[in-house]
């Protein structure tokens, strides 16, 4: 698996032992070290075909390195990867779109030419690419930029052009590395719509982010990555369910026998008691509160958010780093 991905590139046939057709990406035990420091340490991922998959983690967690290994830009030190059925990802380059974290286009190129060039790299003839480039720009309200050189655009506009360039060859799999960074709120919303449209059309979308809200809104599945490891990978609901629902209770009585019904992790926040829903469920809890004369003013059960799940799974330190990165990006 650590062989040169450029080797035998003229043999694009997927490997004989095909993976399950429902997986666009499958990686097992990916390891990558840089100058002795382990950036990625045994990552396992299974990305279902047609899904929107988020890789969630703070800066330096290993998101970009993992994506670069999946794409074949770099080879892992250990582990296996299978992308669109092939263990040599570059043989599938024509079916993959990629937006790197550090955006880059040739400054002298016009927008439609830049899109055509990105398409040409993935096998679209230049003439066709130019036509598609203009059409894509028009379709996304950027038609007025078609003849403008990249160097004459704002950073956000250039980023949008590059984003369209990742789609010009109509890929089966799109990999976005931190796609929302550098975009204003309106364009972030548009990108979310675009990602949903891609998935609706059968395209697998995998993106990395350190903004939980994007992952929570968009993703079918997420991988939480911290310190180069993936402590959780799976459906968002399953991640949330890792944490017991939170009970928010407001009572008239401040003390009494009902207090014995509260679990050990119960804490006070203003007029409320907050605690995890006991494993026995809500009914025994309610009964104990009523019999203990708590005088219930309000009681709500809140399902854990992805952020809480992230804290529980990746730890407080990783969550703080993630929050800091989100605030910085904002």
């Amino acid at each position, binding site marked *: 698996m650590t062989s040169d991905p450029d080797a035998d590139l003229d043999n694009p046939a997927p490997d004989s032992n095909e993976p399950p057709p429902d997986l666009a990406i499958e990686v097992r035990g990916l390891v990558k070290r*840089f100058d002795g420091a382990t950036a990625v340490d045994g990552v396992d991922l299974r990305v279902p075909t047609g899904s929107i998959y988020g890789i969630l983690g703070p800066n330096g967690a290993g998101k970009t390195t993992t994506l670069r290994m999946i794409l074949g830009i770099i080879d892992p030190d250990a582990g296996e990867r299978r992308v669109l059925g092939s263990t040599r990802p570059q043989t*599938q380059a024509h079916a993959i779109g*990629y937006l790197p974290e550090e955006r880059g286009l040739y400054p002298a190129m016009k927008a439609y030419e830049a899109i055509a060039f990105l398409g040409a790299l993935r096998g679209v003839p230049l003439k066709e690419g130019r036509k598609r480039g203009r059409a894509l720009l028009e379709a996304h309200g950027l038609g007025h930029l078609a003849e403008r050189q990249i160097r004459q655009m704002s950073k956000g506009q250039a980023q949008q052009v590059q984003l369209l360039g990742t789609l010009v060859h109509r890929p089966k799999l799109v990999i976005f590395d931190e796609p929302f960074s550098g975009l204003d709120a309106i364009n972030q919303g548009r990108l979310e719509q675009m990602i949903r449209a891609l998935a609706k059309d059968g395209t697998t979308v995998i993106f990395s982010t350190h903004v939980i809200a994007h992952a929570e809104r968009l993703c079918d599945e997420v991988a939480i990555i911290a310190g180069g490891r993936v402590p959780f990978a799976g459906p968002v609901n399953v991640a949330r369910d890792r944490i017991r629902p939170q009970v928010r209770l407001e009572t008239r009585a401040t003390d009494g026998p009902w207090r014995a019904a509260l679990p050990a992790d119960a804490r006070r926040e203003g007029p409320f008691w907050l605690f995890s829903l006991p494993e026995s469920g809500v009914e025994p809890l309610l009964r104990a509160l009523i019999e203990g004369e708590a005088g219930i003013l309000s009681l709500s059960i809140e399902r854990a958010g992805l952020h809480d799940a992230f804290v529980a799974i990746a730890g407080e330190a990783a969550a703080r780093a993630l929050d800091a990165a989100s605030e910085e990006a904002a």
Partner: protein
Amino acid sequence: MIGTRQPGRLSLLAAAMVIARRDFVAILWSRSFIFFLLGPLFPLVVGAMAGSIGSRVETSTDAPQLGIAMEGPALDAMLTAQAALGPRIDGALPDLAIVRRLKPGEKTDPAALLRATPERNLAAIVSGTLTHPILTGPRDRIAQWQGPVSLMAAHAQGLGPSHFPDVALSATITSHAATTHSRLRTAQGGQTLLFLLTMLLAGMVLSNLVEEKGNKIIEVLAAAIPMDAVFLGKLFAMLGVSMVGIAVWGATGLLFNLLGGLNLHGLPPPAVGWPLFVALGVCYFSMAYLLLGSLFLAVGSMASTVREVQTLSMPVTMAQLMVFFFASYALARQGTPVEWAAMAFPLSSPFAMLARAAMHAPLWPHLAALGWQTMWVFLFVRGGAHVFRRRVMQSGPQGVKRRRSLIDIWRQR
């Protein structure tokens, strides 16, 4: 948004052509390309100016003359002898300039005369008598003129031949020695031209990946196509740009030739004939360019800034010079293992083979050499791309680094 999927992927060559086309067009449409085309004009202008100044300096200085200070009859006899012998041995006799016509028995100090006439371009003075001429002047000059003065003095005494028969000339086209010598000149000329063009143009690829690395485009390229294709495409583009430059310069030179500004007819014909020699020259330039360029591209790809590239330029130029010197040295050692080594060593092979085209007629060695050189181009490109992936993209296991560490440890011991 998604319509019909794109089938297939690019072959290595097709991917290389995408890069080559982009680079070629970008360079051709850039303003700096005009300066690139005008580049050779600067040394020509400087050369012409230097030549003009040199010729002025030269014409302002008269040819050195031999002063003569003898008694009247002897002096006249010497002048007559110079006039009689001069045309027969063209250029061998110095011009005589009368410094002093002495009276019979008059003595003179030639050294003092030489010092006293700084306004005249006298290199030495002949004095004394016809039987005992004395040559006074700087040591090297009088040693040079000793024989001619003796000849003139002998003729002036009537001791030499008085009649010179005409020699009929029967010219042959050439002789083996003349052919070899003239072809050697062609070979040297071809090698030098090839070297100058390669040195001027191949160095440009050093900085070729700096833009991609600076703009972060390299990440997009690396994800889409093999790094070999990126390297190959960049080489092809720069080769294309160089060919455009050479075509423009060549056409300009041809125009000058047609207008009578240059005279190329004096060049000795190469063994394979001019048309084939030019064709082989184009092939060997392409190979020399691709071979050196692939190495320079690999070296330059390690640099991340233009300043680093500039620092690399000097050793790279030195390396080119060494290759050229090796090929030139091999030209003077024809038929020896040195010549074979120069033809086999990939970097010097194009230079050595072009020289061979000038010297020997058989063509099959050129076909073999071009195949050999093409193989090395691909090996260099592949090696360069591999090193780039390992060192710059930091791809693959860190085994190379470990091996290097072991070498370092061994060196430290």
